């Protein structure tokens, strides 16, 4: 029997790695990938809570399904925007996208 903490810690690790990726990476595609990692962590959390703590309902599982769906849509939209930027500016590097500031 795996204690729930294991899953929660795993989720935390995954989420933190995602955070690291978002903060450290310069490429927009890599950033969106890191966000996906974070969403994976969220899914793990939801499912773990659902199956361990609150099995009488499926709220957590349903939530996880939606998270995965939304994550997919997010990737799609983000990639569309990234592509547009690349077309116009020739870069997908977020550090170089800093016309707007101050």
């Amino acid at each position, binding site marked *: 029997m*795996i204690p729930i903490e294991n899953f929660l810690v795993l989720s935390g690790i995954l989420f933190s790695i995602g955070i690291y990726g978002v903060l450290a990476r310069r490429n927009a595609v890599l950033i969106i990938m890191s966000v996906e990692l974070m969403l994976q962590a969220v899914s793990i959390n939801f499912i773990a809570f659902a199956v*361990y703590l609150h099995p009488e309902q499926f709220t957590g599982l349903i939530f996880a399904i939606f998270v995965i769906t939304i994550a997919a849509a997010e990737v799609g939209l983000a990639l569309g925007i*990234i592509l547009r930027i690349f077309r116009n500016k020739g870069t997908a590097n977020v550090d170089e996208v800093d016309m707007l500031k101050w």
Partner: protein
Amino acid sequence: MSYEEVIFYFVAAVTVLGALGVVVARNVVHSALFLILALLAVAGVFILLSAEFLAIVQILIYGGAVTILILFVMMLTRVRDMPQALDGPQRPFAALAAGAFLALSVLAAVSSDWPGETEKITVVPFRELGDALFRIWAVPFEVASLVLLVALIGAIILARSEEGE
């Protein structure tokens, strides 16, 4: 240590490894591949959590759709041709922040006195899940479809070439 735990630690290790690969790989394509690895491993975690359905969804959506999309975009944006480093200058802060968050989340997970630790449901009944999804959660479901629609429209409008471009 039960065999279940062994499997868990293995899957968890793969997940973490994959995730780390995503964020530290020196090659973007490697990153993408690591992401696939991580996603698959997470699907394994789902199975360990008895959520097989979720695992299938995970593999289908991520493995099938998302990663392919990502690879496409990588191709289109020619990220491999980019000469600069993949990491930005604030990497140390990133590590610090991620570490801090890790500490917090671990603290929250470990220190909490979670109720009903042992009563893990063994299997999620597809039927009931489906029923709940389309009956109780019908509205979010429909809204989610609208979200997908918006993402679709948005991606098409933004990505497509206009006349004269």
